[in-house]
């Protein structure tokens, strides 16, 4: 299982949890498993074609997966994933 940090704007879809676990060997598999457990996240993260939305960034151990192998990036048990969608809030 990999720990996935859920941003505040998306926590409503995961029962208000800050972090949730999901399993998979790649970033794509982990996110797909995550959406399977929390279906509300589906349209927030993925386009109809199954690609990541361009306003959502995913970081594996602090590095943007787009500059690694994108959704094919290998994930280890101890890796940490952070999901960061664009936030506008200037308060």
């Amino acid at each position, binding site marked *: 299982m990999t720990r996935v940090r859920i941003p505040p704007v998306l926590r409503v879809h995961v029962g208000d949890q800050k972090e949730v676990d999901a399993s998979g060997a790649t970033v794509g598999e982990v996110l797909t498993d995550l959406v399977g457990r929390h279906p509300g996240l589906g349209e927030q993260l993925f386009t109809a074609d199954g690609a990541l939305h361009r*306003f959502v960034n995913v*970081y594996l151990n*602090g590095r943007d997966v787009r500059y690694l192998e994108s959704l094919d990036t290998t994930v280890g048990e101890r890796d940490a994933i952070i999901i960061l*969608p*664009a*936030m*506008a809030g200037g308060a």
Partner: protein
Amino acid sequence: MARTPVREIMPAEAADLIAQGAYLIDTREVHEWNAGRIAGATLIPPIEVLDRIEQVAPDKSKQVVVYCAAGARSMRAAMQMAQMGYSNVASMAGGIGVWKQEGRPVELPDSTPAIARNPRYARHLVMPEVGPEGQGKLNESKVLFIGAGGLGSPGLLYLAAAGVGTLGIVDFDVVDLTNLQRQVVHADDRIGMKKTQSAAMTIKALNPEVKVVAHEEMLTEDNVDRIIDGYDVIIDGTDTFEVRYTLNDAAVRAAIPVVHASVFRFEGQLTVFKPFEGPCYRCLYPTPPPPELAPGCSVAGVLGVVPGVMGLLQATEAVKVLLDLGDPLIGRLLIWDALDGSFSEVTLRRDPHCPACGDGVLAEQRQTFNMPTLTPAAG
């Protein structure tokens, strides 16, 4: 045992002894000396006392008065002199700090710019990383705030206090009661007043030396280039994606760094977009989310202190950029979780294909601004 030849004296007695022709030694560091000293003193930093005192004060039987900032270093220097055979050494209690508190005169080097004589900035002037030169830079700097709201409020206050010479404010809104839970640059009796005017009043009350430029308009494609022209740093505290993209593209064109922050409920994010040294906002998020996927603070709420903290971190980054200090958050996004009390960081990269700051645009910019070769963005 012989009576110790070292005495601790009050500034009044020191002034008398100085008037009678005592040797006067200032045992502080050069940057402290440059910020002001007692007329007639000779600077001997603590580490140089043993080597230089006999040259400066050859007659060991004559009265010597030593002072420092608060009286500790001068006492140590006086003891050293006594061991070397000086028979009449006095250390001034409380140092030049008490001397000044008593309203006694302090001399500045002739070459010192007026800014360095300004006691308002005394705590900056004694720091070697700021000093008269850095304070002068701040005084000549122009910082533009996009929004005098939750993020802008603390930054406006602290940059005004810090003596940033010109603070521009872009805001067309008026102060509303619901703003006052976090927008501390405004006040209860100014509800209904234009935010630019309200912020200017607070800034003038805090530091009348700061010039405030009010831009009472909404930032748009049509006016953005004119509004940001001439500013050194921009602090982005807007709450719409549209304005963030408009600002980003114009700031990249004008090569002005943008200190970006956003807040949501208990969380904040912060980074510095310095054109071509790191990514821009468009590298990070090429397209905005649809409105239903990105609720703003008016819908989701925000803990009042969260924009306060993030706004001050923005102001901190702005000062770092202006004075070229430390490691600004270029290519790094800081995430603050107020509930956890934790900061985390992710690495951001400049997208070589970015329509705003990609390699094609960079080549043109390099010609326009005569910039050196690109340093690859961290990643």
